[in-house]
Structure formats: structure tokens, C-alpha cells
């Protein structure tokens, strides 16, 4: 065991229901004793599956779950010192509240007075003293949720798992329960693992947030770290609002996007392609003469405590917040403090695909095959009588050669005609980048293609990715 404080560790955890698609892929996570950890992500990202594996309701396909350093991944739920608060409460309808809460204690063969006392104490913790004899259906949703919590904590588990427990409550009730859960966590000192898709809930309650997407951890950190320094554009886009732009680092250590150079606090080598993220509250609207760049207000929407102002700078759109309404059409300046810009290097592994040349000089990739002029790959080569010759005049046997293909997302386009592009798939992610949308298209073979498009598509749309032949770069590997 690496750390004495670690209560549970997930090591190389993978889960697949159909042996083909991985719901969770090689996931590693350490959780310390007494922490309030939130697994946050959009629906279908695998967060509930992780919780169910910790609880014992699913068996991992690969990997280990170490509780106090011992692998518990194959133990049934009843042998784990872990209790769960279920999304739909899952109270026992044929029992009254006392019997529900005492269920676990009775199984442990505690004597009656001890059970009575513990049930009473658990009801005190959830603020429902004296409810012992009531039936389940006489309770409101919020009360049922409290009973579900009482039923779990009365067993004094090492870890309490909470599977979107507040999802079914109305807004006010949810706010109240968030604070109460946080209080309970402090009072009990039990490790809480909380699953939610509500970023506000995660930011309010957690000591540590694990942002997930697509079965993988995107970032682990405190709420402040996650909000202020998101590790990639997915996290920035998912947590709070964000202006995201493509840009580059300049010679002087500044960052350039929207045709403007900005001072920033992150440093990368000059020329590095980056993605810059700016929170709307860090976009300051100033007089046109004082701005780093100028633009025209295109809309101003009242949001309760502030106005959301959209400013167009050329083709780029900035979202800003302002205390005052600014009429559409007003010329304004935009100013961003250096620490208001968060820069991450552009993911250089995107859109690289490996293919193999077949006997017909076609390159076969997983999703498609393409016939290209192979002289582009072999420097100085030429084709004569359907054979490829090197610059020394010797024929090259191309069959079986591996070739890497890359295309710039900016050069790609999307079409709703499946045969129009080289490959088709479903859109799984959309991120707005000021003047265009950045899409991820996932093919049937689970390969992701990054493409930029000016038009707005929807998640789940079946599209084909069109890449002009000359925009694909081939390298021999």
C-alpha cells in the first residue's frame, strides 16, 4: 500500500458488458479516508458503472478494487463494508421505516436495544425523529431519500456510495439536501463517493472531483482546480461556461487567438498549437479604446444576477458577463487579464490513423481504404508500369508497409450524406470555439475523428467526414 490514508484504490479497472465496447477503460483512482469524492460526467460516461463495481453489483472485466489494500472486486455486495444510497431510494415497501433502517443491523444479529438506539440515532442525523412506525409511502420524496441515507449510514460503513441521490428532488429541496449531506459527511467522517451529472452540485459539495467522459478520467482535482485550470477543453466546456479558441504561442511568450496577442500565465514553446479557454466572468467589457480587441454586441440576455453579453469580433464570438445591459449593436472593447486565460496544448494525437498498404497499392485503414499516389510517401520515388521504384531505380515492395495518415480538423467537413465522406459515424461531442464548432465523430469501429464545421449539428447525428484528398498527410512508419 502506497499511502496509509488511502481507503480505496481502483487499479487498471475496465468494464465491458458485451466484450466489444469498453464502458470503463483502464481506470486508476485513489480515494483517501474521509474524503468527499464526486464522480462527475455526462450521462453514459461510466460513472454509475464505477460506483456499481465498488458496491459489488458489477464485476470488473479487468483490474482490481483495493479496499484497505485488499482486492475486493469479486466479493458479493453483502460481504463489503460499503453501503449505497440508491437513485430511486429502493426502500423496502413491505416494511415500515424502523424495519427498513434496522434491516442491516438485524442481519448482523445485534440485540434489540442496540438496534433501537442506532435506528433512533440515524433518524436524528437525517432529521426525522419519531418516524419509526410510519409506512414508506406516507413520506415525501425528500423524506424517503433521508430514510435511504439513514438505512445506509446506520451500518457504519467504511464508504458510503451515493448514486445521483438528489436527482429526483425539486430544485429547492436539492439545494437543502446538498448542504445537509455535506454536514453529515463532516459529522460522520465516512468516505463519501458521490455520483452526479450536475456540475454545480459537484462544485458545492466535493473535496475532490473526478471528471469523467467516455469511460475515462479527464481530470481529478479540487473544485477550484477543476474550474480554474481545466485540463482539456472537454472539462472546460462541461464545467461552467467557457469561451474556447484555437490559437498558437508566439515568440514573446504570449498567446495568440482571434488575431490578437494576449499576455498569459501558462508557458509553452513558441509555435505550439494551443486551445485557450476564457471564463465569461473573465471577459471584461470596456470602452473600445481601452480594449485589447473590439467587437460589436450581438445580444444581451438577462440571467438574474447578470446580463450575458455576446460580442462578435469578426467571425469570433465572445460570451461575457456584465452588471449592466448593453444594447445590441454597441461597439465595445474586450479586455482579459493574464490569469483569466487558461492555455492547454492542442492534443497532437488527434486524427492520426495507421493503415497498411495492400497488394493493389491501396492503404487500408480500420474504417476505410484509400488509393493514393504512393510517390507522396516515398521520397524521390516514381511509378513505372504500375510498379513503384525508389530514387535509386530499385523497385519497392509496398505491400504490408505501415503508413500514418493525419488530417487537420479544420480541413474536414461534415455531411449528412453517409457516402459523401471517407468515413461515417455518430457525433459524440460538440464544443463551440467562437467561430466554429469542434466535433468528434465516432465510427462503427469505435474510432474517433475530429472535425471542425461551421454548421451546428446535434449529438447523435449520423454524419460522414469529408476530407479533401490533398489535405491528408501521409508518413511512412
Amino acid at each position: 500500500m502506497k499511502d496509509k490514508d488511502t481507503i480505496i484504490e481502483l487499479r487498471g479497472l475496465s468494464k465491458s458488458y458485451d466484450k466489444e465496447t469498453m464502458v470503463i477503460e483502464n481506470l486508476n483512482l485513489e480515494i483517501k479516508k474521509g474524503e468527499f469524492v464526486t464522480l462527475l460526467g455526462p450521462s453514459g460516461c461510466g460513472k454509475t458503472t464505477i460506483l456499481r463495481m465498488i458496491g459489488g453489483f458489477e464485476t470488473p472485466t479487468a483490474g482490481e478494487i483495493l479496499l484497505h489494500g485488499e482486492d475486493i472486486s469479486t466479493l458479493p455486495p453483502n460481504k463489503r463494508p460499503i453501503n449505497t444510497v440508491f437513485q430511486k431510494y429502493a426502500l423496502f415497501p413491505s416494511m415500515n421505516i424502523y424495519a427498513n433502517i434496522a434491516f442491516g443491523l438485524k442481519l448482523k444479529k445485534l440485540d434489540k436495544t442496540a438496534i433501537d438506539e442506532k435506528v433512533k440515532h440515524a433518524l436524528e442525523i437525517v432529521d426525522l425523529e419519531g418516524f419509526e412506525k410510519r409506512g414508506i409511502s406516507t413520506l415525501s420524496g425528500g423524506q424517503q431519500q433521508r430514510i435511504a441515507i439513514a438505512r445506509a449510514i446506520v451500518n457504519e460503513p467504511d464508504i458510503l456510495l451515493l448514486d445521483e441521490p438528489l436527482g429526483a428532488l425539486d430544485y429547492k429541496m436539492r439545494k437543502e439536501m446538498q448542504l445537509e449531506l455535506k454536514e453529515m459527511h463532516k459529522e460522520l467522517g465516512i468516505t463519501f463517493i458521490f455520483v452526479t451529472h450536475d456540475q454545480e452540485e459537484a462544485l458545492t459539495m466535493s473535496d475532490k472531483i473526478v471528471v469523467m467522459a467516455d469511460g475515462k478520467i479527464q481530470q481529478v482535482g479540487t473544485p477550484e482546480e477543476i474550474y480554474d485550470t481545466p485540463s482539456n477543453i472537454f472539462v472546460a466546456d462541461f464545467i461552467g461556461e467557457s469561451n474556447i479558441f484555437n490559437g498558437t504561442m508566439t515568440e514573446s511568450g504570449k498567446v495568440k487567438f482571434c488575431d490578437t496577442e494576449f499576455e498569459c500565465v501558462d508557458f509553452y514553446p513558441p509555435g505550439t498549437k494551443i486551445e485557450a479557454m476564457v471564463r465569461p466572468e473573465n471577459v471584461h467589457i470596456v470602452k473600445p479604446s481601452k480594449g485589447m480587441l473590439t467587437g460589436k454586441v450581438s445580444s444581451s440576455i438577462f440571467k438574474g444576477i447578470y446580463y450575458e453579453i455576446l460580442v462578435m469580433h469578426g467571425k469570433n464570438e465572445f460570451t461575457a458577463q456584465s452588471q449592466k445591459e448593453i444594447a445590441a449593436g454597441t461597439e465595445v472593447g474586450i479586455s482579459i487579464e493574464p490569469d483569466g486565460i487558461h492555455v492547454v496544448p492542442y492534443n497532437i494525437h488527434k486524427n492520426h490513423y495507421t493503415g497498411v498498404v495492400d497488394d493493389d497499392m491501396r492503404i487500408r485503414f480500420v474504417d476505410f481504404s484509400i488509393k493514393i499516389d504512393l510517390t507522396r510517401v516515398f521520397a524521390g520515388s516514381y511509378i513505372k508500369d504500375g510498379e513503384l521504384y525508389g530514387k535509386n531505380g530499385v523497385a519497392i515492395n509496398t505491400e504490408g508497409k505501415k503508413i500514418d495518415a493525419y488530417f487537420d480538423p479544420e480541413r474536414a467537413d461534415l455531411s449528412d450524406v453517409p457516402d459523401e465522406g471517407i468515413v461515417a459515424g455518430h457525433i459524440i461531442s460538440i464544443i463551440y470555439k467562437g467561430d466554429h464548432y469542434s466535433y468528434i465523430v465516432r465510427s462503427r469501429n469505435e474510432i474517433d475523428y475530429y472535425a471542425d464545421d461551421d454548421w451546428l449539428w446535434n449529438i447523435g447525428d449520423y454524419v460522414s467526414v469529408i476530407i479533401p484528398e490533398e489535405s491528408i498527410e501521409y508518413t511512412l512508419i
Partner: protein
Amino acid sequence: MKFTKSKLSIPYIIYMVIFVVLPLLVVCYYAFTGDDGSFTLDNFKSFLFNSKTMGTLVYSVIIAVVTTLACLILAYPTAYILARGPFRRSDVLLVIFVLPMWINFTLRITALKEILSAIEGNLAFHPFFNSVLGMTYDFMPFMIMPLYSSLSKLDGQVIEAAADLGAKPWQTMLRIVIPMSMPGIISGVTMVFLPAMTNYVVLDMVYNSTFIMGSLIGSYFSSYDWHNGSMISVILLVLIFVISAFSNKLSREQLNRREGAGL
């Protein structure tokens, strides 16, 4: 012409009067009259104070109880596996179990009879076993259906919650699954027990000298003794009425408990 609710009910009322109320009145009339047409309780006296007829009644009840239990014990695990097992098309599997109902039941019982005679030689050696087997075979779908529907409605999270709180699989079964499927058990038991009490065709076919209530009625009627046949029918009617009232009360209590009128 406008169709009001009361007008729409006219055909049903006519149907009920002709096929339910009138026959019942006729049965009651015959049950409480003698050969001369005068009111008498002699029919009942001769039944209740006759050890042979009372024996038939007890035998019928025992057969019905054993049949119901056999159906329940066999159907519960079947329904549980069908409803909660790892099958993708459990509804199709359910149809396979219910499929025998689509075949004429005299045909089914005749087939069973042939199989049993091949195994046992003479059916007279095991009259009780054969009767129970025949009826269990015949009534099984009536038990599986309500059990399946109540088990498949069961919230899987509740079962997981029990395991989560430390219950071993058998404890979860005993304390959570069976109590929660009680409505299904009650309606299944009612649907098997009542026909098992009165059915006599199955027994007649499997072993035709086994006397139970149903065959007693049949034998009286076939010898044109309307009075005694009607009398036994009335006794059975009362018995069934008591049993259904009791099972209704049980299921209502279940419902109340669930609604939690505890305070």
C-alpha cells in the same frame, strides 16, 4: 340515439340475468326442496351427517391444497428465473410455458394419461398422485402468469439494496422478494385453488373412479337427482365464496401495508 352508460349496460344485464342469476336461483331452489317440491333441509343433512360424503369433501380439499402447493413450489422458481434471469426475450420464454394452454385440455390430459399408463402400468395404483399430477400440469400456467407479472414488476434496486445491507441471497429471497411478490402469490393461489376444488374432468380422465366434489355433482346430475346435485353445488359455492373473501382480504391487507396506513 345517444348511447349513455346505462343504455350500454343493457346487454350485459340481460346476459347476467339469463346465464348467472337465473341458473343460481334454480340451483338454490332445487337444493332446498325435496322430491315433492316442498322446502326442506334434508338434502344438506344427508350430506353433512354422512361420513362418506364428508370424506369426499375432505379429499377434495386435500387434493386442491396439494395441487396448489405443488403449482406454487414449481411455478415460483420458474417465474422468478423467467422474470429476473439473464434472458433477453423472457416474454417469449413465458409463452412457451403457457403454450400448452392453447391445446385442447382433454387432448393434453389424454396424452398425460398415456404417458402415465406406460410408466405405472395400471393407473389405479396411484390415484392420488395421478390426480394431483394431472391438475398441477393443467393449472400451472395460471400460477406462473400472476407470479411472473408481479416478479417482473419488482424493482431490481430493492433487491440490490438488500444485498448491499448485508443480506445473503436466501435472506434477500425470504425477506424481500417473497413478501414483495405476495400479491402475485395470492392471485395465483386463488386462480389454482378454486378450479382445483371443483374440477372433475381431469380426475375423471386420469382415473375415473376417484370421487371428489366435482364428480359427485356430476354423478348426481347424470342420475337425474337434481336436488342432491344442487345441494352440493351450493355447498361448494359457499366454500368458494368464503375462500375468495379471505384471499381478497389478504391482498387488501398487503396493499394497505404497502400504502403504510401504519399510524
